[in-house]
């Protein structure tokens, strides 16, 4: 049984929504450009906007079914919502906000208040007024408030978009903690590649109210990076590997991929971990043969795939077995190296340019 099944038609502003997808446990990202109807879709699932027809099923219970005449009001859907702006009730303290679902919503709540407060690190702000909180704290309280309503599904509508970059970095670890600790499926709307790379298990690409593709996060993001819509200089891909060695003397870790090994810097690695790495296309160089005498120690054998020219630049897809990297190099370099689909080459990655996007405890299928 999937955690969420959506098959709805309705209106969002100037265009039609006609969306069908299902989502399993973990984080499903609704990913796509602004104004693609993602937020309206969330509202329809929460019951604060009405589709014209269709069906919405969460964890086996039908929330909306136009054919059967079912349309539960939002308060009976058991769907948590974290909005772009925190929407904390300004006349209530943080504590009263957090417990709102229990004293006003009559939700009994199986999740322990103290646990959620500790998980989100808001214990010392319980008696504050929302107006005195920072943007990041406000959003954390909003997440806690939604969790304490004991939802069967958590909807998040670009919860980081109202925050500056530093604040986002502050919140992301909490979102990761929620993902692992809360044990409820999360539907996460975003148009930020980095957020999706870090959080999502599954990505649903949405464009103009329609599903343009569904798949595991890594594969979908690689596809999206090649699409014209995204900012080429920020394009990035995700690769996954297992940590097979740690060198404490140099603070490096060896991550084994299907076709080679990467030496990476940074803490937080442990042997046996499966890690997801985010590699920006601009940080990948290509060589026609392995080289000695370079500071770049990561040289992965690969096969050249698609090659897209874009003015002075070229986006080159590099296949590492089943996984893919994208390299953004100059068009001139591409010509000098005589790159063409099917050619063998080496992908060069500086250890410091690779971001560890996420750690899995065990092997994943994504």
């Amino acid at each position: 049984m999937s955690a969420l099944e959506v098959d709805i038609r309705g209106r969002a502003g100037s265009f039609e929504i006609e969306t069908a997808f299902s989502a399993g446990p973990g984080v499903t990202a609704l990913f796509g450009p602004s104004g693609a109807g993602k937020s309206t879709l969330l509202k329809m699932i929460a019951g604060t906007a009405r589709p014209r027809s269709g069906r919405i099923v969460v964890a086996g219970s039908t929330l909306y079914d136009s054919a059967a005449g079912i349309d539960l009001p939002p308060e009976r859907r058991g769907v948590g919502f974290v909005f772009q702006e925190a929407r904390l009730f300004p006349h209530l303290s943080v504590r009263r906000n957090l417990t709102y679902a229990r004293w006003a919503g009559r939700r009994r709540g199986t999740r322990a208040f103290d646990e959620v407060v500790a998980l989100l690190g808001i214990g010392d702000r319980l008696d504050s007024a929302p107006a005195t909180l920072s943007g990041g704290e406000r959003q954390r309280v909003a997440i806690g408030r939604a969790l304490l309503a004991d939802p069967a599904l958590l909807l998040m509508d670009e919860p980081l978009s109202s925050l500056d970059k530093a604040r986002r970095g502050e919140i992301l670890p909490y979102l990761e903690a929620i993902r692992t600790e809360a044990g409820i499926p999360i539907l996460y709307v975003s148009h930020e590649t980095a957020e999706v790379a870090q959080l999502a298990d599954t990505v649903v690409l949405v464009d103009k109210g329609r599903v343009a593709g569904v798949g595991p996060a890594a594969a979908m993001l690689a596809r999206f990076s090649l699409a014209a819509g995204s900012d080429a200089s920020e394009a990035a891909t995700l690769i996954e590997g297992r940590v097979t060695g740690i060198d404490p003397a140099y603070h490096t870790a060896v991550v084994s991929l299907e076709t080679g090994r990467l030496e990476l810097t940074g803490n937080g690695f442990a042997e046996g971990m499966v890690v997801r790495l985010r590699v920006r296309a601009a940080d990948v160089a290509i060589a026609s043969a392995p080289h000695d005498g370079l500071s770049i120690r990561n040289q992965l054998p690969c096969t050249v795939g698609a090659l897209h020219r874009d003015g002075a630049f070229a986006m080159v897809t590099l296949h590492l077995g089943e996984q893919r990297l994208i390299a953004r190099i100059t068009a001139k370099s591409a010509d000098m190296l005589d790159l063409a689909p099917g050619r063998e080459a080496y992908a060069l990655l500086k250890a410091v340019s690779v971001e560890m996007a996420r750690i899995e405890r065990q092997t994943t299928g994504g």
Partner: protein
Amino acid sequence: MGEAELSIILLSARVALVAILAALVPAFAVAWLLARKRFPGKGLLQALVTLPLVLPPVVTGYGLLVLFGAKGPLGRFFEQVFGLQFAFRWTGAALAAAVMAFPLLVRPIRLSLEAIDQGYAEAARTLGASRLTVFLTVTLPLALPGVIAGAVLGFAKALGEFGATITFVSNIPGETQTLSLAIYALLQTPSGDAAALRLILIAIAIALAAIVASEILARRLTREETR
């Protein structure tokens, strides 16, 4: 302060208080309709509510006399159903004050309702609160500053109401003779200047006290809100 003056003040306070308490709920309902709903005749309702503010009070008083007088259709209805008489009674003075104060109540409540972000209600619904609970726990508390501002403004208006009151229920000492009417009556008599002056000073004191009280109340409320 003589006994006569005290009874005038108590009567005025009772008339104004009853007027505001009776008008508050309908005023809130009308403000809510005007702030939140779209319906045919909304413009008409808006005009009707504003009417007492722009009509000569004497006209409003005459209208009340026609409708709520002993032989008026609404007057007879209230007499038969509730045993409530308005004509030449203090209840009539309260009715006149309520009607005159109504637009002053509606406006600040409407503005405060319009200022509330609808997103709060949406958030509350997703947290399991029914429409009624959202109203009681979110909308009403957030609209409270507007309600208080309206009540204070309306109370001041009710206390000073003159034209509609004297037209509707006349100027009967001990029954309908409120502060304004008493001052007017005293000024009509050759030797009443001194007594009128005392009442005038009392009226000024009451007005000042009302302003200070509402300021304190509003400040305490906003502090609680942001605490």
